[in-house]
């Protein structure tokens, strides 16, 4: 039982119950940080760290937390982990910290973190919750990285800051600007949903 349960917990957020393109959660940061691959990677790691550890912590204390104030407790736990991310990032990579601006702090209000804690961690064992949180973070992460890859490639002609497309490439400035984010995510959702419908199984 344990084995299949773990596997299922790990795989659902990556595919048929993906937080970004199925549940449409955490859209703010999906759009805001994906104009550069390096920034996106940092953001993804931050979200993975926060989701996994807040799910684990809440699950650890799930029997002690009174139901009435659980939202408050959850927010405090999440905020604590976000502060850790913020401080570490500021110390080791102030450049990216500056570019991400308020979006690191906004992991607190990222619906994915809160959603996993509410929907999963309150009912499940700590170890399982940790896996669920980590997998949700990864499900969110790979979508972001794909979008960031396309936006950076077309918008700046670079990948991870390195020039790949030569001078002949006319940069699609719109890709790194706000509308590009909206269009890219919409196209991504479209492709995934059409693909899912065609195959009739999880994508």
């Amino acid at each position, binding site marked *: 039982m344990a084995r299949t349960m773990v596997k299922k917990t790990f795989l659902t957020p990556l595919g048929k119950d993906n937080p970004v393109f199925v549940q449409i959660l955490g859209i703010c940061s999906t759009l805001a940080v994906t104009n550069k691959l390096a920034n996106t990677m940092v953001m993804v790691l931050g979200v993975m760290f926060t989701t996994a550890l807040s799910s684990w912590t809440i699950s650890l204390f799930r029997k002690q937390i009174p139901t009435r104030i659980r939202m408050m407790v959850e927010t405090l736990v999440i905020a604590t982990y976000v502060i850790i991310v913020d401080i570490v990032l500021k110390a080791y990579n102030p450049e990216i910290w500056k570019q991400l*601006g308020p979006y690191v702090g906004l992991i607190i209000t990222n619906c994915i973190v809160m959603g996993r804690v509410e929907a999963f961690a309150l009912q499940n064992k700590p170890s399982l919750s940790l896996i669920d949180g980590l997998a949700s973070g990864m499900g969110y992460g790979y979508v972001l990285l794909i979008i960031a890859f396309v936006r950076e490639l077309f918008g700046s002609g670079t990948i991870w800051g390195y020039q790949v497309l030569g001078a002949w490439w006319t940069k699609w400035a719109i890709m790194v600007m706000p509308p590009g984010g909206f269009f890219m995510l919409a196209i991504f959702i479209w492709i995934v949903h059409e693909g899912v419908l065609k195959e009739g199984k999880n994508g």
Partner: protein
Amino acid sequence: MGNFLFPLAVFFAAIFTDNILLTNYLGMCSFLAVSKELETSAGLGVAVTFVLALTTPLNWAVYHLVLVPFQLEYLRFIVFIIIIAAFVQLIEMIIERYSENLYFALGIFLPLITVNCAILGASLFIVIREYSFITSFFFGLGSGIGWFIAIMAMAGIRNKLRGAKIPIGLEGAGIALIIAGFMAMAFMGFSGMIQIS
């Protein structure tokens, strides 16, 4: 630009050129979920504007009068989110006590607002951009109005789309995001108007 006019410039910039939703992508979750109906959109828009205009200067005051003197800046995430949650709760109780009509109009939206990232985002922006108290108030108000305009426009367009044939994969969030993309492009047209930051 004179110091005296700066808050006003920030106010207009927050509505048009630096729209909190279309340029900074804040408050997307409730934007996508609620923008199906004009009436509910208006309700949420008013509630967001109201809370933004008041919590932003409040958070400014707490940050500069309490956190900075005690060198506790790193606690700002926790403090801001608690202040917002407490403030929303307080407003809900006051409205419930004094105005039944307003409570029924806004009441259901207030709990939604605590988790709206636009509110926390605005408070974080004023810290990063080092706005003054007055500027913070205008920034909060302007951001709220900008959010209100965006969600109203979106709800209107989605109303018109109801009978339209949309590819199945794009229904719901997909088409909403494309509309938002066009709106963002339209708002980019304002960008020559005011130049700040």
